[in-house]
C-alpha cells in the first residue's frame, strides 16, 4: 500500500511525542485501543485552567503508520484550541487531511476517540477539583 506524503511526514517526523505527568490536575489523558487489535493510542492535553485553552499536547502510539500519523496530527490540531473546540475535531477531518484509504479509517476513529477520552479525563478532573474547592469554601 502506498502512503500519502502527509502520513509519511508524520511517521518520519512525529510531532509532540512524549508524556505528561498523569496526576497533574491540568493534564487530561486518553488511552484507547488494545494491543491485540494492533493499535493503542495515548493522547494527553495540558489545559490552562483559567482560559480553557489546550497549551500543549503529547502522544504515544502503538500502531501502523496511519495510526501514528493520525495521533501526531491530532496533537498539532489540539494545541491552541479550547477544550470545546477540540471536541469538534472529527475523524473525517483527519481522513481528509492525511488522505487515508478506507482500510485505515479506523485509525482516524481511534484518534477522535483518544481526543474525546483525553478531554473527558481533564473535565472529570477539573470538576472534582472545583467541587473540592467549593466544599472547602462552604
Amino acid at each position, binding site marked *: 500500500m502506498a*502512503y500519502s506524503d502527509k502520513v*509519511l511526514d508524520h*511517521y518520519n517526523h*512525529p510531532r509532540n*511525542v512524549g*508524556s505528561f505527568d498523569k496526576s497533574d490536575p491540568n493534564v487530561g489523558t486518553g*488511552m*484507547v*485501543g*488494545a*494491543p*491485540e*487489535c*494492533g*493499535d*493503542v*493510542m*495515548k493522547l494527553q492535553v495540558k489545559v490552562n485552567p483559567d482560559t480553557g485553552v489546550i497549551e500543549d499536547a503529547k502522544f*504515544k*502510539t*502503538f*500502531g*501502523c*503508520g496511519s*495510526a*501514528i500519523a493520525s495521533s501526531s496530527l491530532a496533537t498539532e490540531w489540539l494545541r491552541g484550541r479550547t477544550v470545546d473546540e477540540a471536541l469538534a475535531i472529527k475523524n473525517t477531518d483527519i481522513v481528509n487531511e492525511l488522505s487515508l484509504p478506507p*482500510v485505515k479509517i*479506523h485509525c482516524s*476513529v*481511534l484518534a477522535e*476517540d483518544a481526543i474525546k*477520552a483525553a478531554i473527558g479525563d481533564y473535565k472529570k478532573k477539573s470538576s472534582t477539583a472545583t467541587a473540592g474547592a467549593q466544599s472547602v469554601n462552604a
Partner: protein
Amino acid sequence: MKLPIYMDNHATTQVDPRVFKAMLPYLTNVFGNSASRNHSFGWEAEEATEKARKQVADLIGATSKEIVFTSGATESDNLALKGVAEMYAEKGNHVITAATEHKAILDACKRLEKEGLRVTYLPVQTNGLIDLDQLRAAITDKTILISIMYANNEIGVLQPVAEIGKIAKERGVLFHTDGTQAAGKIPVNVTQDNIDLMSISAHKMYGPKGVGALYVRRRNPRVQLTAQMDGGGHERGMRSGTLNVPGIVGLGEACAIAKAEMPEESKRLAYLRDKLKDRLLASLDEVYINGTQEHRLPNNLNISFAYVEGESLLMGINDVAVSSGSACTSATLEPSYVLKALGAGDDLAHSSIRFGLGRFNTEEEVDYVAEKVIDVVKKLRELSPLYEMFKEGIDMSKVQWAAH
C-alpha cells in the same frame, strides 16, 4: 549493495539466471507440444519435459512416473485433497490436517466439508509442531488422508514428517505433505519418509511462477486420484492440459541446481540467518522468536518485536522487502492465524516480521538489515505507549483496554 533488499523468499524467489537460460529455447524456437507424438517438434518438447520430470523426481527421492506437473503448489494441494477425497470416498470420509497449514489446504478442506467430508484440524504446540499423540488419537477407521505440511511458510518450522509418515503407513492412511517451502531447501525423501503425495512449486526455489508438481506414489501403496480438471488426459489422466514446457524445464533445472548446491547453500543461509538473529537479540530487549529454532528451515527467521506494531516497522525499513503477521498489512484485519495458533497472543502476532533469506542475499545485506531494524524498533519504542508501560512495570494483561 543495491537497494531495495529482497528478503521475502518465502513469498517467492528470483529466477536463477541458469534456470532462465535453460528455459529460453523453449520460449522461442523449441515450441512444440509435448503431446504431439508424430513430429520432431513434439518429440523435442517431450524429451525436455521428461528430463525435467527426472530432475524433479531426483530431488525428492521419487521416480519419474510419480511426478505430475501442475500450475503450482496451490493446484497440487487441491488435486491431492480433492482427488483423494473423491477417489477414496467409499473407504472413508475423514481427513486430518493442522491449523497452521497454508490456505490452499485449509480452504480446500473447507470446500470438502461443505460436500460432507469430516476434517480434523490438529492444533499445534507453542513451538509450532503438531503433537503426534494427538495425530494418532485423531485417526479413525474412516480416515483416508493426513495432510500435514513439511515446512511452514510463515515460521519455517519443520513438522515431524518421517514420524507422521510412519504412523500413516501403520494405520493404512494416505499421507500428503505440502512441501512447497521444504523442497529444494532441505533434504526431502518421499521413500524414506513414507510420503504418498507431496506438493511442490518452482517459484519458491528460484524457478518460474505458474508451475509446480504433485508427487503421487506408484508403489506400496499405489495412490490413485480423481482428476479435478477434464480434458486430454495428460499426466497419466490425473491432470489434463497441454504441458507448460518452458515452465517445466525451469522447474527441472531449479530442482537440479537445488539438489547440487543444497549442502553448501543451506549452511550459508543458516549462517546468515543466525547472524541476523544474534544481532537483533543482542541489541534489543523483548524480542521473541516464533516457532522452534531446533526444527526449522535454514533461511527462516520469524520474530516478534514486542510493543512495536508490524506495519509501522515495515514502513521504517521500507528499503527492505520482508513481510509481517500484522493485520494492518492485509485487508483482513485479523493477524496471522499461524502465529495465533502458536498461542503467542494477538499482540505478539501484530508485532511479527518474517525474514526469508535466499540464494541471492549477501552478508553485507544482512548487516544492513540488522542495523536498520534495530534503529527503527528503537525509534518506534520511543513512540510506543506499551513500551513505556512495560518500562514502568505495569502488567499489561491486567489493563482494561478499550477494545474497538
